[in-house]
């Protein structure tokens, strides 16, 4: 929480703050994600900039009340530009002891804890692993607390609506929401409307939930009157005018693929195999069949990438999505796509650790896999998204490059970006330039290996076209005829042309810009992917102290922008911050011989702004 002053709004004394981080936490059955979603929408409507991050338990039905069954949702909102879901919460809403136990250590000093005392029964305390009640043993010292029997108050608020006991208890998340609404002076109306719409067929449920929201809100007013708690105001942020919605990374990448296929004037063949955190792409595209999309849940990732490639062979846009372990399985087929030069988009929603690792935690450790991870000299294009909404643009760019250059493109995103959401200024899809694909139809002097002299992309003859019957395959083929060739000079030439084709793409992507700051200075902080938010905020904070620090965020990982090498040389020091043990830094060192320093984090959690900030200050201090 930054910058506080007191103001009076609607008779309530509200302390004005610049930005706040609130974390809702409870049992996975407590409706935490819904609560977070509603608070997000209302906060967006109030004009704040925001960023959110849900944190689900890895277990599907973890035993109720246990620490590993805790579900959380964090939102960071403010009157300034918000780029991350926040380092540490200022407010923790804990609906049971396990939620308190898991999250309390993260709370900022002096932060506010809202607890449901009704859930702090001996049984629940035991399940959470508490020996004695943290509400009574001084554990909450140093924090401000609103301890309220949310369970009991909720039951009381909904008692006239005829719900079963179980249904009634389920309304307690709405009570908590109402209380937090009061805390930040939020309108209840959007949630009331949403409840009425969602439970249209069961008005008793809608009305109970509304009653719970109101009761929570009323409780806030009462405590305020009694002087126990103060309320806050977060003024609207200066946000670019326009029409907005919130969007998660998974939604954005899916819509971006649809847009990309439209721009390429292609139908889409999407094939996937369920894997956390990438399954969402398969799920969301399966609901978009009206856009001429065939979705296919294959028997494994190998079959999925192969079916996607088979789809490209037939003249559609072949797309597959997975996470690290699944991408590993796809590797051989990606090599085939490189060899036969067909377009293919591979979405890698990265997750933490080798092997199964931490499936629900985030990391950026598949950069080597994307850039180098194939047998033989097998170059492809790698692009990376930097924020949830950015996945949309990057998916279009991936499609453009795949179809224009007849090459596989790997789109790197990650578990954090996939699940996090942010407000998105809606683009006019029609205004995005088209890049329509032209299939070959001219039979004269036909060879499947003829290529565009400029892009080096081979032509795309699609089965079904009379007169263009030909054979392709993974065996080395003649540069001239496309027929099998075991000739030494030809293999040299084909290897060179495959590399040259990808290298030339550097001339068809934007020059590297400085994301924040000057194009020269003392320190450049280089990042890629989801570290965008924390890096840019950290750089902003250090710049505010007058330091010559810049942020360079790389979207095109391979090939790299043409001017990147010379740009980096204009800084005395270069820091590369990434959520791996130093992968981009290796690439940059090897490409540009730049003496960069790494800032690495592999805890499964995104960087905190403070961590990046400290690293910059340290290097500046030297």
């Amino acid at each position, binding site marked *: 929480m930054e910058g506080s002053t007191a103001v009076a709004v609607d008779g309530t004394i509200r302390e004005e703050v610049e930005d706040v981080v609130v974390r809702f936490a409870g049992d996975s059955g407590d409706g935490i994600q819904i609560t977070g979603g509603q608070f997000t929408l209302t906060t967006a409507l109030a004009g704040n900039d925001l960023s959110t991050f849900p944190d689900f338990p890895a277990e599907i039905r973890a035993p109720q009340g246990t620490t590993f069954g805790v579900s959380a949702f964090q939102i960071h909102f403010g009157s300034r530009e918000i780029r991350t879901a926040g380092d540490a919460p200022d407010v923790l809403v804990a609906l049971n002891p396990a939620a308190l136990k898991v999250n309390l250590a993260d709370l900022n000093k002096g932060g506010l804890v809202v607890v449901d005392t009704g859930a702090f029964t001996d049984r629940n305390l035991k399940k959470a692993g508490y020996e004695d009640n943290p509400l009574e043993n001084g554990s909450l010292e140093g924090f401000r607390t609103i301890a309220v029997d949310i369970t009991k108050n909720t039951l009381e608020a909904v008692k006239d609506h005829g719900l079963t006991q179980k249904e009634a208890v389920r309304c307690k998340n709405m009570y908590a929401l109402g209380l937090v609404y009061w805390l930040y002076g939020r309108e209840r109306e959007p949630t009331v409307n949403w409840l009425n719409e969602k439970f249209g067929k069961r008005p008793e449920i809608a009305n109970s939930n509304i009653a719970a929201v109101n009761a929570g809100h009323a409780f806030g007013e009462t405590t305020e009157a009694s002087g126990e708690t103060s309320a806050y105001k977060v003024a609207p942020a200066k946000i670019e005018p326009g029409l907005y919605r919130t969007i998660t990374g998974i939604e954005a990448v899916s819509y971006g693929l649809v847009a990309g296929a439209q721009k390429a004037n292609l139908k889409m063949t999407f094939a996937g195999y369920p894997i956390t955190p990438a399954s969402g792409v398969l799920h969301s595209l399966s609901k978009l*069949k*009206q856009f001429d999309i065939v979705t296919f849940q294959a028997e494994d990732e*190998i079959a999925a990438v192969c079916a996607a490639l*088979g789809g490209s062979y037939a003249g559609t846009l072949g797309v597959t999505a997975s996470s690290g372990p699944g991408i590993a399985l796809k590797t051989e087929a990606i090599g085939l796509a490189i060899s036969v030069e067909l377009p293919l988009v591979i979405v890698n929603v990265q997750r933490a650790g080798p092997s199964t690792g931490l499936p629900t935690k985030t990391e950026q450790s598949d950069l080597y896999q994307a850039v180098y991870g194939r047998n033989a000299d097998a170059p492809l294009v790698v692009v990376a998204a930097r924020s949830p909404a950015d996945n949309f643009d990057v998916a279009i760019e991936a499609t453009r490059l795949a179809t224009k250059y007849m090459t596989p493109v790997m789109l790197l995103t990650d578990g954090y970006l996939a699940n996090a959401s942010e407000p998105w*200024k809606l683009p006019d899809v029609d205004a995005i330039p088209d890049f329509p694909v032209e299939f070959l139809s001219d039979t004269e002097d036909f060879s499947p290996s003829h290529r565009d002299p400029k892009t080096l992309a081979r032509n795309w003859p699609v089965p079904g076209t009379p007169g263009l019957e030909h054979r392709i395959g993974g065996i080395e083929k003649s540069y001239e005829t496309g027929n099998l060739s075991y000739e030494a000079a030809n293999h040299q030439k084909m290897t060179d042309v495959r590399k040259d084709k990808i290298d030339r793409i550097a001339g068809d992507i934007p020059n590297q810009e400085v994301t924040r700051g000057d194009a020269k200075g003392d320190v450049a902080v280089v990042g890629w992917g989801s570290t965008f938010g924390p890096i840019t905020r950290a750089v902003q904070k250090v710049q505010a102290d007058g330091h010559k620090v810049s942020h360079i965020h790389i979207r095109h990982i391979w090939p790299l922008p043409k001017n990147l090498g010379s740009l980096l040389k204009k800084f005395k020091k270069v820091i590369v911050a990434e959520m791996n043990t130093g992968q981009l830094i290796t690439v940059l060192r090897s490409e540009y011989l730049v003496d960069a320093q790494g800032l690495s984090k592999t805890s499964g959690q995104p960087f905190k702004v403070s961590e990046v900030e400290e690293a910059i200050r340290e290097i500046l201090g030297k």
Partner: protein
Amino acid sequence: MNVATPPEKLTVKDYASDQEVRWCPGCGDYSIVRAMQKALADIQAPLEKTAFISGIGCASRFPYYMATYGFHTIHGRAASIATGTKLANPDLDIWVISGDGDALSIGGNHLMHVLRRNVDLQYILFNNEIYGLTKGQFSPTSKVGTRSPSTPQGSIDSPLSATEFALGCGARFVARGIDALPKHLPEVFKRAHAHKGASFVEVFQNCIVYNDGVYDHFTAKDVAADRQILVEHGKPLIFGTDRDKGIRMRPGIIELEIVTIGENRITEADILVHDETNKSLATLLAQMESPVFPVAIGVLYCDPAETYEAAVHAQVDAEKEAYPKPDLNEMLRSGPTWTVE
């Protein structure tokens, strides 16, 4: 009156590509490619609509020798690539070409799924009971005791039956052919082609270099008539040099037995009539092994059902009908939105 000029008739030669065939002289694959070219000429398959998609192995070189579209892919995965191709363009006529290692070892998973999904394509498995291309290791169909570079003391693992596997996977068309039956094999291919859905054909193929003569025990001229039975729908299961041997259910037990017509008061009426829609019978026939039984050749099972790609496209079409002219701009704006002034 206008008379439409009849389209030029394609001959067997028109289906052969100009590429030099690189199989070992005497390899059974030669007869299979000829049988295929004949079958395609017989059905006048349009070159541009036909695609051969193969994995890796000697057998999988096949597409290079056909004048149609062809895709020589990676080891074991042809079925998956073909599934994507068929989903993307259901008008294409797809043949998957595979070997016993390609189909049943590295690609066993994909074979299983392409069959159970019933994707409309023809899957031709060239079974030579050996890994030809990698120089002769035993394969999942090799008999126990097969000596090979990797099993100098003889192979230990039990072989599987490709045909029984296919039936077990839920294939709706299962047939067998032999490379050395140049008249019969094109007919099997034509039946496979006529079947809507996944058609599985096991072709017994001789690898003259690494497994020469593995099928002699039922394909050699002197024994063929007694050790093979060419099954035909609606015809009694009769075989033998004198066509006096028949197959019937052993009374009181679910088992086939061989009987001789004219002995023990057995007449033709006692012989089972082949019913290719009967899966239990197909399974029993597939299980018959030489020398105790004749090896069943021909269409063992054919019972069409809706194809996978038709069902997939029915869903796509239903969505397109429910949401005609979908507009992405509209879609993106369909949920909660707000305006920042």
